[in-house]
């Protein structure tokens, strides 16, 4: 028997009130409800979270690691985006 493949879901957990959901791993499940249950069993056995998101893995579009330089390198040269680029006399105090 060739089994139909179980869909893959990415799991995100909010660890504490006020924190963002963070990617923790993935689970296989037939539907969203079962994915939530599996995520709860696999990733929150020690009070790791207050909220879980599950997202079908195929719904995620990722940047290509090969494009890393063209995507992210230009920001390295824009030092004027950082506060330390600007000269403010010490007498002025913290700004």
């Amino acid at each position, binding site marked *: 028997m060739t*089994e139909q493949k*179980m869909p893959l879901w990415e799991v995100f957990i909010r660890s504490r009130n006020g924190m963002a959901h963070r990617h923790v791993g993935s689970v296989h499940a037939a*539907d969203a409800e079962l994915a939530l249950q599996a995520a709860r069993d*696999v990733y929150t*056995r020690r009070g790791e979270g207050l909220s879980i998101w599950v997202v079908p893995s195929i719904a995620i579009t990722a940047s290509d*690691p090969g494009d890393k330089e063209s995507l992210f390198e230009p920001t390295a040269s824009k030092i004027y985006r950082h506060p330390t680029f600007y000269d403010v006399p010490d007498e002025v105090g913290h700004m």
Partner: protein
Amino acid sequence: MYTQALNASDPSSAPAEDAAALARFQARIDAEERIEANDWMPGAYRRTLIRQISQHAHSEIIGMQPEGNFLTRAPSLRRKAALLAKIQDEGGHGLYLYAAAETLGVAREELTDQLHTGRAKYSSIFNYPTLSWADIGAIGWLVDGAAIMNQIPLCRCSYGPYARAMIRICREESFHQRQGFEIMLSLVRGTEEQKAMAQDALDRWWWPCLMMFGPPDAESTHSDQSMRWKIKRFSNDALRQKFVDATVPQGHYLGLRFPDSRLRFDAATGHWQHGPIDWSEFSRVLAGDGPCNRERLENRRAAHAKGAWVREAALAFAAKQRVRKEAA
């Protein structure tokens, strides 16, 4: 918990890969960068990791069986709750690891199939039987202790998804060894019979635990490549020595004897030296002829087959719901 002798690089080295790409890859490794799922990697690096991570996962899943044997016979509710939690952790650890292996482009179904058809190995230690309650103590203390020695360096493995899974596993596993030692401690402080149970468990588990670290460095094939790729950080013998040094004083604290007449402390090196390991036993068990190999695999296959209708029903239900939603 457990990788062992599973950490040899894949022998079938890749067809000519771009030398420049290989050099760039090695430079990233040397700079302690983490390799992520979509990054370029040599074919042999990918194959080595798929095999090592999946066999580590299989070990976790098969490792649930020896302890499961005593779940209904734990001597108290406290012990039973702890044992159940430990076995659940092992199931969870297997799943983290399968997920890490899948990031390398292999399907879960394929990995499961490799285990069930005997094409993939798992740690030899789980082919030994649990004969008494003391074995549950010995597994936690010794088997998990050995596993932790192996796993801590894996938290720094060059492959990001594997390293992250290992960090989580190591954090959760620290209770496993302590609960095992506590069981041993209760037994040695008990009746003469209970002390004898603890001694018997140590006698049977000690040598198989030393084998968990894999063959001696002189005979360990392909581990140089795994070291260069920073999949592996310490040699088999180095990890085994760390384990022996940590464990022997614990055993003496328990008032137990190690089943090794050659075991002695070498003041010059500061290490405990153990006697020769019977590697023919290791090869036999790994090749499928240990005390419980057939039983472990049969149980796993049966559990998977018995669950087939659940997986099918869940998929059929999901498909039906999808159709209804689309129609509405």
